[in-house]
C-alpha cells in the first residue's frame, strides 16, 4: 500500500509526539511506531525533567548549562547545551499549559527536587531543579502529548516496523514499513523522515530499557549512510534492582536516599565529598563497582544497598510510590523498612545519529545536512549529553529538540517538493523479508541475542580494557556471521514476532560493533567511558566527537571538534 505525507515520524515517544504536534500545525504528518504509542519507552522515565524555574530555590539557566557541560565531561557541544538550558523553563510551562499534572509546591507552583549533578553556583551545592509528577513523570507527559495528538487527529500507524529508509541521490524520500498485524508492506512517500526511535539498551544483558529499545532508527540511519556519533558513551544507571536491572529512579536519592556498602558505610561521601549520593551517574556507577571489587558489596556479592527507610512513608507514598512498588513486586523488599539491593544497569545511549540543534542529520565533520532526514531524542546525538548525561536532561532533550525539529521540518516541507525515487524500495524490502522467511540456517535468534548481550555486558560496560574489548569485537563479528545463518520458525504474516526479533537483532549487532569500535578507538577515560588501561582524560588527543560511518569496506571512524563557548575544560570533581 502507498501513502504520502509531508513528514513521516518514526517513533511515538516524547520526541516524536512533540514534533508531530509542531508539524501538524501546518503540514501533513504520520507517526509510525512498532509499539502502540502509549507503550513507548519515554513512559518509563521516572524522576523528573530539569529546568531552572527557581520555584524552590535560587537557580539560573547558566548553572544548568554549566552542570550539563561538566556532567558531559566537557564533550557536549556547548552551543547546543545553551540552547537546551535556556529553553527549559519555556518547555515546562508549555507542558503545564498542555495539561501535564506536575506536583505542586504549597504556593501552587510546579514543585522541584534535587537530582544528580544539578547544582547551584557552578557546583557549590545540590539544587532543586527537577520538575516531576511523582515518579511517573515520563508516563504522564507521554499520555498528555498522545492525547494532544488525539485531539489534533494526528495520523498514527501503530505496530508498524520500518524496514528501510528510501534514500536516493543522497536524499531521504520516505520509508518502507511492515504492518505487524497483517504482514503487509507499506511505502510512505514523504519530504522528510524524522527518526525518533529512542535507545538501544537491549544490546546489553542488564538494562532498564524496554524490549523495544533495540536502536532501530540508529541502525537504519547508519545503513543509509548517516554517521553515528559518540556511540561508545553508554550510560549505566547506578541503581537498577539487583539482577533485574529495573530502574530505581535517581529521585530516590534526590529525596534523600543514600547508598550503603556491606559495612553500612555511606561510601559516596568518600568519592564525592560535596554532593555525595547526588554525584552524576557515571561516577556513582563506578563507585558501586569499586566497592564491589574491594569486597564491600552486600554479602560479598556484586550489589550495594539503596536505603530509603529514613525518608518516612509520606515522602515515599507521595513522591516515590511507583519505584517502591517495583521493589516490593520484583525484589520482595518493603522500601519503608529495608534497603533495596541495587547494581548498575544499562540505561541510556549518549551517542546516536549525528545531528544539529534543529534536528537535521549531518553527514560529515562540517555538519553538511542529509537532505530529508532528521533525528531527535535518544536516537540522535546533538550533542547535549557528551560523555555522560545528567538525570532529568533526557526528557528535556526529547521535548526541546523534538519541538525544534518539528519547527525546522515545517519550514523544510514548505521549501521542498516530494521526490519519487526511481528505485523500487518496496520490492527490495519484500525480498529481504522473503529471504528471512525462507532461510534454512541452523542458528537461533535467541541464542545469538543472548551471546551478544553477554559479551557486551562483560567486556564493554562500566570498566573497559583493550584486550577484552577486542575479544568482544571479534565475538560480535562472529555473531554477525552466525546471523547470516538464522532461520525463522514463524512463516506467518500475522503478528510474526519471530521476524521482528530477527530485524531487531540485525540492528543491534550493527550498533554493538560501532560501540565496541568507538570504545577501542578512545584511548582515554571520559564520562561513562572508563578505560582501565587509560584511566585519565586526555584533552590533547580526545576532546573530539567520535563518528562512525558505514562503508562497503566496513565501518570508518572519523572525528569532529567539540564546540566550546563559555566553559573551558577543567578537572571534573564533585
Amino acid at each position, binding site marked *: 500500500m502507498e501513502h504520502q505525507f509531508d513528514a513521516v515520524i518514526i517513533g511515538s515517544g516524547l520526541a516524536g509526539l512533540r514534533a508531530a504536534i509542531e508539524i501538524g500545525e501546518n503540514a501533513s504528518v504520520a507517526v509510525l511506531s512498532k509499539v502502540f504509542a502509549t507503550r513507548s519507552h519515554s513512559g518509563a522515565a521516572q524522576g523528573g525533567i530539569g529546568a531552572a524555574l527557581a520555584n524552590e530555590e535560587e537557580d539560573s539557566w547558566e548553572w544548568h548549562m554549566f552542570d550539563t557541560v561538566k556532567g558531559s565531561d566537557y564533550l557536549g557541544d556547548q552551543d547546543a547545551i545553551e540552547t537546551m538550558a535556556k529553553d527549559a523553563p519555556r518547555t515546562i510551562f508549555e507542558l503545564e499549559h498542555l495539561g501535564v499534572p*506536575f506536583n505542586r509546591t504549597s504556593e501552587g507552583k510546579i514543585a522541584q527536587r534535587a537530582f544528580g549533578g544539578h547544582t547551584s553556583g557552578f557546583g557549590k551545592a545540590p539544587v532543586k531543579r527537577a520538575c516531576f509528577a511523582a515518579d511517573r513523570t515520563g508516563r504522564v507527559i507521554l499520555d498528555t502529548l498522545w492525547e494532544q495528538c488525539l485531539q489534533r487527529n494526528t495520523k498514527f500507524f501503530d505496530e508498524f516496523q520500518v524496514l528501510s529508509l528510501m534514500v536516493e541521490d543522497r536524499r531521504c524520500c520516505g520509508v518502507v514499513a511492515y504492518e505487524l498485524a497483517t504482514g503487509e508492506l507499506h511505502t510512505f512517500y514523504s519530504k522528510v523522515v524524522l527518526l525518533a526511535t529512542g535507545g538501544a539498551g537491549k544490546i546489553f544483558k542488564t538494562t532498564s530499557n524496554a524490549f523495544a529499545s533495540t536502536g532501530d532508527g540508529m541502525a537504519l540511519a547508519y545503513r543509509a549512510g548517516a554517521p553515528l556519533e559518540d556511540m561508545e558513551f553508554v550510560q549505566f544507571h547506578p541503581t537498577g534492582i539487583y539482577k533485574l536491572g*529495573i530502574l530505581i529512579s535517581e529521585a530516590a536519592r534526590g529525596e534523600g536516599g543514600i547508598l550503603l556498602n556491606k559495612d553500612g558505610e555511606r561510601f559516596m561521601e568518600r568519592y564525592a565529598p560535596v554532593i555525595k549520593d547526588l554525584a552524576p551517574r557515571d561516577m556513582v556507577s563506578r563507585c558501586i563497582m569499586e566497592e564491589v571489587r574491594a569486597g564491600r558489596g552486600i554479602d560479598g556479592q556484586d550489589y550495594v544497598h539503596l536505603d530509603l527507610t529514613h525518608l518516612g512513608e509520606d515522602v515515599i507514598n507521595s513522591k516515590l510510590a511507583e519505584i517502591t512498588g517495583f521493589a516490593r513486586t520484583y525484589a520482595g523488599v518493603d522500601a519503608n523498612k529495608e534497603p533495596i539491593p541495587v547494581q548498575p544497569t544499562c540505561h541510556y545511549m549518549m551517542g546516536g545519529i549525528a545531528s544539529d540543534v534543529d534536528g537535521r542529520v549531518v553527514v560529515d565533520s562540517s555538519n553538511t545536512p542529509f537532505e530529508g532526514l532528521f533525528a531527535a531524542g535518544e536516537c540522535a546525538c546533538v550533542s547535549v549529553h557528551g560523555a555522560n548525561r545528567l538525570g532529568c536532561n533526557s526528557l528535556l532533550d526529547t521535548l526541546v529538540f523534538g519541538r525544534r525539529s518539528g519547527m525546522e521540518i515545517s519550514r523544510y516541507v514548505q521549501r521542498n517538493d516530494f521526490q519519487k525515487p526511481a528505485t523500487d524500495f518496496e520490492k527490495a524490502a519484500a525480498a529481504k523479508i522473503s529471504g528471512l522467511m525462507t532461510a534454512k540456517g541452523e542458528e537461533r535468534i535467541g541464542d545469538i*541475542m543472548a551471546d551478544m548481550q553477554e559479551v557486551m555486558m562483560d567486556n564493554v560496560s562500566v570498566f573497559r580494557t583493550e584486550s577484552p574489548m577486542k575479544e568482544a569485537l571479534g565475538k560480535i563479528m562472529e555473531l554477525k556471521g552466525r546471523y547470516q545463518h538464522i532461520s525463522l520458525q514463524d512463516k*506467518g504474516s500475522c503478528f510474526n514476532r519471530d521476524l521482528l526479533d530477527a530485524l531487531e537483532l540485525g540492528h543491534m549487532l550493527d550498533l554493538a560493533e560501532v560501540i565496541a569500535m568507538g570504545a577501542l578507538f578512545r584511548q582515554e577515560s571520559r564520562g561513562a567511558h572508563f578505560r582501565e588501561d587509560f584511566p585519565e582524560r586526555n584533552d590533547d588527543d580526545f576532546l573530539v566527537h567520535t563518528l562512525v560511518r558505514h562503508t562497503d569496506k566496513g565501518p570508518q571512524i572519523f572525528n569532529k571538534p567539540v564546540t566550546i563557548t563559555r566553559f573551558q575544560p577543567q578537572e571534573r570533581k564533585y
Partner: protein
Amino acid sequence: MKCNFIIYRFDPAVDKESRYQEYTVEAEPTDKILDCLNKIRWEQDPTLAYRYSCAHGICGSDALVINSRVELACQKLVRDFKTGNNFVIEPLPFFNVIKDLVVDLKPFFDKHRSVRPYLISDQKPPEKERLQDSQDQEFFEPALRCILCASCTSSCPITRTNPDYVGPAALLRAFRYIFDSRDTATDDRLEKIDSQDGVWGCKTMWWCTDVCPKGIPITKCLGQIKRVLKKNKAAR
C-alpha cells in the same frame, strides 16, 4: 524448577478454532510470567504471539488472563501463584483475538477518545505555569497511575453485557479531567457521561478495582463522578 504452561493459541491463517498448547519451562520462583513466555518463544516455539515492551508494569502492553484472572504478565512472578507451578495463559476477555494472546484494542481506544481525554480550557494560559492547589492535584492523582492496559474494561461485567458502555478506563480518564481545576469543560464533560452508557453504567461491582495492576481505586473514582452529578441535580 519445572513449570507447566497451557497457552491459548489461535492463528487466523491456520486455525478454524482456538486451541490450547502445552509447554514445560525451567523457571525460578522469582521469574516473571513474561520471562517464562519469552523462554517458550526463544527456546521452544517462536510462533507464539503476545505483546510486551517495558517488562516492569509501566507500558501496559502485556495484560493477559493468568489462571483465570487478568494480570500483567511482567508484574506477576512464578512464586505469586499457588497452583503447583501450573499456569493457564489466555488473552484478555471481551476483545477480539488477532493472534494467540494478542487482542484488537481498537474499541478500547475509541472509547478512550470519546471522553475527550485532553485538557480543555477557555482561559488564556499565563506566561508561566497556572497555579494549582496541591490538594486539587492529589485528588485526581490516582487516575494518573493508569497505564491503559485495558485490564479493568475487559474484566468489567457491564462492558461484557453492554458493548456501548464506555467502560471504567475511559471513565477514569474523564474523572482525571473533571477534577483537574485547570479544565473548564467540567459541565460539558459531566453531561456527556450522564447516562447508562456513561458513568451510570457502572453498577459498583468492583471488578475493575480488583484487577487494576496499578492499584487504582477505579470504582471510588467513578463514584466521585456520580456524586457530583447527583449534587448538581439536587441543586437544580
